[in-house]
């Protein structure tokens, strides 16, 4: 047992532990996916997408159409609010403010904002859009999701724009192009893939959010497109169903969980693949 041998053994043990950590990570992903797929498949049927909520004792009668539709509406409205603000903000941070103190300050503030707990955003929107308006409503839910979207989109837009070579701007400016046209027609176009993937990843992230919706759009048993009423959403409905004592509701929750997980994971895989292949 010489010293050299001990060192070797110790090294192998540490490297083995590192490999083990990676294996555990992969195994956990598949363990969670397996359980979600196995349990979710049992409740996956057409009624889930075509019927609205039925009382729990009516087994097999209810579905989650209202929640799917509500989730799509909320996410769409949030995108309509959040994407332009995020992209314009990112343009400012990269094109106008990258060398100014204000620009750098807002950029780091946006970085920090990405990690604000989403439930805090829920309480904030509650005091702005729920309490003054007298009740839970869809607008509040959409705005809460938009507030989560904005800093994420802003930072990814900024990062994508900064990857565009500076010479490209100079070449266009030298031809006498006004700066807004340089940004609109050259910089944004070159960075389109990066911005597109960033925006899509951000939307996929908020599509799975529950906490900010609990205090804002809350929930609704009925199919509703009225944004000034409480709005059903998939995640909040899953939360309520999974916590309920009824077996068929719990199964429905797993089935919806399967749909949302598969959607988010597939989006992530596809977008990360696109991201890897882009030139800028």
């Amino acid at each position: 047992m010489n010293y050299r041998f001990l060192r070797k053994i110790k090294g192998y043990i540490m490297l083995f532990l590192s490999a083990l950590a990676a294996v555990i990570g992969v195994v956990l992903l598949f363990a969670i996916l397996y359980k979600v797929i196995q349990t979710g498949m049992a409740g996956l049927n057409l009624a889930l997408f075509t019927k609205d909520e039925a009382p729990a004792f009516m087994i097999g009668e209810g579905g989650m159409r209202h929640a799917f539709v509500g989730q799509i509406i909320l996410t769409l409205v949030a995108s309509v609010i959040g994407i332009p603000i995020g992209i314009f903000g990112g343009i400012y941070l990269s094109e106008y403010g990258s060398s100014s103190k204000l620009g750098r300050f807002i950029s780091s503030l946006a970085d920090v904002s990405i990690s604000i707990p989403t439930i805090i955003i829920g309480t904030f929107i509650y005091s702005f859009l729920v309490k003054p308006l007298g009740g839970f409503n869809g607008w509040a839910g959409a705005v809460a999701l938009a507030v989560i979207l904005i800093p994420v989109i802003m930072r990814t837009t900024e990062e994508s724009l900064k990857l565009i070579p500076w010479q490209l701007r100079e070449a266009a400016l030298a031809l006498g192009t006004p700066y807004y046209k340089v940004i609109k027609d050259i910089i944004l176009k070159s960075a389109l893939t990066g911005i597109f993937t960033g925006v899509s990843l951000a939307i996929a992230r908020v599509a799975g959010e529950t906490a900010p919706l609990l205090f804002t759009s809350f929930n609704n048993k009925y199919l509703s497109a009225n944004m000034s009423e409480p709005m059903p959403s998939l995640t909040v409905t899953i939360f309520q169903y999974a916590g309920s004592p009824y077996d068929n509701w719990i199964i429905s929750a797993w089935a919806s969980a399967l749909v949302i997980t598969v959607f988010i994971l597939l989006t992530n895989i596809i977008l990360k693949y696109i991201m890897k292949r882009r030139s800028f």
Partner: protein
Amino acid sequence: MKETSNFSFYKDKFFLAASLISALSILLIIIGIIVSLFIESFDAIKAFGFFNFIFSTSWDYNEEIFGAGRALLGSILTSFIAIIIAAPMGIGMAVFIVEMCPSFLKGFISTAIELLAAIPSIIYGMWGLFIFAPFLENTLQKWVSGALGDVPVIGSFFQINYAGGIGLLTSGIVLSIMIVPFIASIAREALSRVPRELKESGYGLGAEKWETIRDVSLPYTKTAIWGGIIIALGRALGETMAIAYIIGNMNISLTSVFDPYVTVTSVLVNEFNEASGLQMSSLFFLALLLFVLNFLTLIAAKVYISRSR
């Protein structure tokens, strides 16, 4: 000709104004959060006092005396457990991917670990409640309480007082799974940027592979990895839906690591929609405290990273 250039000029200004206003929205959001949470929690601050509220462990609906002590302790403890597990695991994952993994597996393993971060929080909550908590109850909890439960002095920390497997330790472990991808991806990014010459000089001095990683690569990437760990801590503090399922949400004095407990986020989820008056104000105060805690953590990470650059 003159008119078009004039038009262009205004469009240019308009573009600048639109992007500046959009960028300022971040400032508006942050100020909005601070101001609205402060105004809403003003009643509670007035009634209980700032520091008194932070350290008070009372949460009594009948007497209307509220304090943040337990919720804050719960949030900090669960995050702490999560970091203790996730930090070495994340670094280990990164070391494996960068230094050991055969190249055909690299993409698969790093994507799989990244996808762990994409799974929605509520799925972790359901999985934790229905699958992982019962599993832990039958394995880890049994072993640990069997081995340590009767040891004097520390034994009571490891006793099982409640059935079901949900509680502080379970929450910490599930949280660690949720934050480990952040640490892993930051550590991987940093480790893959260590210059080859540095590593080779380590080998040249006769160091083993692990010794080179420990004494050359990890010190070189120390700042980035610590920054990543602090950011992950901030995430853990604010994690909500998963915790709401598996912390058990019981406002009791903590005696064992397996006990159900409360966190700031679990209290908010469970009570916010039915609260009114002083309780509501106290909940807003809790939210404000969590925001401040989270914000300070993240700013600390930012300052630390930028300073050591």
